[in-house]
């Protein structure tokens, strides 16, 4: 393809975005998107990719810079304005109204985009789209009843219904099975072949190489390089993504980690027997899951988002009650016990939501230390009275030993970056010297280095003797750190594998129902 004689559909000129608080998410980025091409926007988490497409889609206003659509300068005050110019964003987490049907969602959006679709006309257009692209979601189904993949299809239907000429896909493969990924990629190609401009955000190099005509690499808010697919070299792209010295550091971490050795103990720290759990809409989300976890063992729970892992995890940590089945931790039956009982038994919990679940936003790290430890025998609490002096010391120790970058223990939990926040949380949970550590997506949204450090901490904890249950959507992560992997699909545990893992088999198990 020769872009020289084509006019760009969308041009971003010197886009800078500084968030309140001074974080520079985008710095002076200029980028053109041409008709008929797929541009991969490659970079690790936190590189500023999502901010950039959010600006292009009218969700965020740039601090400085200019947007041109087909050569005409535009200012977006609302996503509506962007949609009316033919720009559709397919966000990483679908933005749909849960209690609406798919059709209601689609009609709402196409109206906002300025299309005069009534219910009947929208239905007809959907049928045409199904014929042309083979894309179908039951229009009268409520969004809450849909799987993640279906929701994403509904998002793509939005873009097609408003006939967007520029389609921005933000990490579209995160929650998809390998089969769904293949379908998505060929659909993306079809969209480009029709003359649309497609931007495909990813943090996976392999994906970028597979899908793109051109690859734009971002690092720390800057656009580092734009290379065409045929000139792309893997080592060079990695350098662009991470910077040379960081790649060296990362290889060092992984090498050091591989040299750690440990022996799985005989003691069972977690036993789950025939667990049935209802989801938020009354249906069974977990259907008869059983597993055992021993000390010093890391058990990975794999699965595509929305197959019951969340409910399973929430039941294990004690905030959701099972309908049937048994959970015992370190030999104690905790099935109908609250999460404070788990605290007393020395269970460490690393939930998915760092702010809100693990930390109270707006409160200091000292406060959050006390709150996190309060049910633990190691809490700085005597006769129901908090000893703030000891609490502060504990917080300071955690900050020091885990190298949390923060002015001091009185800093607001909200002011920490994702990686520092997660290190503090892990540090606090490890302070309990847990016999069992329950973690869900502990590295989601972290940049590569921060993620590797968290994985390192988990592995060291297993060496110390804790049993670790790691629920993660990142299969690469599970393969890297787990001793054993179970796959959850439609609420059941359908597959179990030991090291060395056969990734294809695991991926296959994730998609069978």
């Amino acid at each position: 393809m020769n872009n020289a004689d084509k006019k760009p559909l969308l041009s971003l000129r010197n886009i800078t975005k500084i968030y309140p608080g001074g974080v520079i998410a985008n710095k002076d980025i200029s980028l053109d998107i041409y008709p008929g091409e797929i541009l991969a926007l490659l970079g690790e988490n936190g590189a500023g990719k999502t901010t950039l497409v959010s600006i292009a889609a009218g969700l965020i206003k740039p601090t400085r810079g200019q947007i041109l659509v087909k050569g005409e300068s535009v200012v977006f005050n609302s996503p509506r304005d962007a949609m009316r110019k033919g720009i559709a964003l397919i966000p990483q987490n679908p933005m749909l109204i849960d209690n609406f049907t798919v059709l209601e969602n689609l009609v709402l959006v196409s109206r906002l985009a300025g299309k005069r679709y009534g219910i009947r006309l929208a239905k007809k257009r959907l049928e045409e789209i199904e014929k042309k692209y083979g894309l179908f979601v039951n229009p009268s189904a409520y969004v809450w009843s849909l799987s993640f993949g279906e929701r994403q299809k509904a998002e793509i239907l939005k873009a097609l219904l408003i006939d967007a000429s520029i389609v921005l896909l933000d990490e579209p493969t995160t929650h998809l099975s390998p089969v769904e990924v293949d379908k998505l990629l060929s659909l993306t190609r079809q969209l480009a072949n029709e003359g649309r401009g497609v931007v495909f955000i990813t943090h996976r190099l392999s994906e970028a190489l597979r899908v793109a005509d051109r690859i734009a690499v971002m690092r720390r808010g800057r656009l580092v390089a734009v290379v065409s697919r045929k000139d792309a070299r893997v080592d060079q792209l990695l350098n662009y993504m991470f910077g040379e010295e960081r790649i060296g550091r990362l290889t060092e971490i992984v090498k050091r980690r591989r040299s750690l050795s440990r022996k799985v103990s005989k003691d069972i720290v977690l036993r789950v027997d025939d667990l049935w759990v209802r989801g938020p809409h009354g249906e069974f989300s977990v259907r008869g899951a059983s597993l055992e976890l021993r000390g010093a063992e890391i058990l990975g729970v794999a699965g595509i988002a929305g197959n019951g892992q969340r409910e399973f995890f929430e039941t294990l940590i004690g905030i959701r009650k099972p309908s049937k089945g048994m959970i015992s931790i370190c030999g104690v039956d905790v099935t109908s016990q609250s999460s404070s009982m788990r605290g007393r038994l020395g269970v460490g919990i690393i939930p998915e939501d760092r702010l809100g679940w693990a930390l109270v936003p707006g409160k200091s790290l000292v406060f959050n230390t006390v709150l996190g430890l309060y049910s633990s025998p190691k809490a700085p609490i005597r006769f129901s009275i908090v000893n703030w002096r000891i609490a502060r010391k504990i917080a300071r120790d955690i900050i020091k030993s885990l190298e949390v970058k923060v002015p001091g223990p009185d800093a607001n939990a909200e002011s920490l970056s994702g990686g520092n926040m997660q290190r503090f949380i892990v540090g606090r949970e490890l302070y309990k010297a847990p016999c069992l550590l329950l973690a869900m997506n502990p590295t989601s949204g972290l940049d590569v280095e921060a993620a590797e450090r968290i994985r390192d901490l988990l592995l060291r904890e297993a060496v110390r003797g804790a049993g670790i249950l790691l629920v993660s959507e990142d299969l690469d992560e599970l393969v890297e750190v787990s001793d054993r992997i179970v796959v959850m699909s439609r609420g059941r545990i359908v597959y179990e594998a030991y090291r060395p893992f056969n990734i294809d088999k695991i991926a296959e198990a994730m998609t069978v129902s």
Partner: protein
Amino acid sequence: MVNIAALLGQALPYATVYALAAQGEMFLERAGLFNLGLEGMIYLSAGVTAIVSLHTGSPVYGLLAGIVSSAILALLYGFFVISLGADQAVTGLSIVFLGIGLGDVIGRATGGAVTPSIGILADDLIIVLALLVLPVIFYLVLFRSWLGYVVRSLGENVVTARALGVPVTLTRIVALMINGTLVGLAGSYLFFTGPLGSRWVSMSLLGWGWMSLGIVILGYWHPVGVVAASYLVGLLYAMRPLLETVGIPSSIADVTPYLVVIIALAVISALYEKMNVRPPTAIWSR
């Protein structure tokens, strides 16, 4: 012998007051706001209607003035909640006290004189409007038109709606105006046809707004359900004298409608929960 036809007829004016106020509130709650101030708006509207129709001699002017006064309170609510980001519950309660206080001062100024009342024709028109026309319009707008999707998206998930580009503030101001108008009409109508009949008696028109809030839940935020619930409560209200004739003390007869609504509320919400029918999920959201 109980004259059932007469009883059903007697329920109509009461049901009309409830239906007007509750439908206005339902629409607003569908847009994600919860106006707790109905009680005050109804009371103020009744007081303003009393004084304006007394001094102009025209019940129509009274009616319009009542509506305007209620709409002004609704706008005030909107100014605090939407523009200043104030808490909805606190603001709503303030509106209650403000409306009752102002309404009483204004209403007292009539000195309890009998004001000209709206004629039977206007009375019937309002009944038909409240019980037959409005529910159809609300149903069509909310569930059969894209405008309804815009409104309901705010009641379901305002964060997503905003991200989709729904004009949040504008839609909510429009919903507030509809709320203020209908609640004001309910107050005026209550003054003309209520228990006292076109004569102001201090603190006699209380409780109608609170009950309307309950009726929205009883009708499960659905226009037809809300009107049905309004009629049911209106009927209970009309039945009070009847209860007294069968030997139930008047104090107990008076609370019967409230008691029945409380029990019905509990049963109905449990039932809907089972059926997986959800109220708008983001009523209190900003």
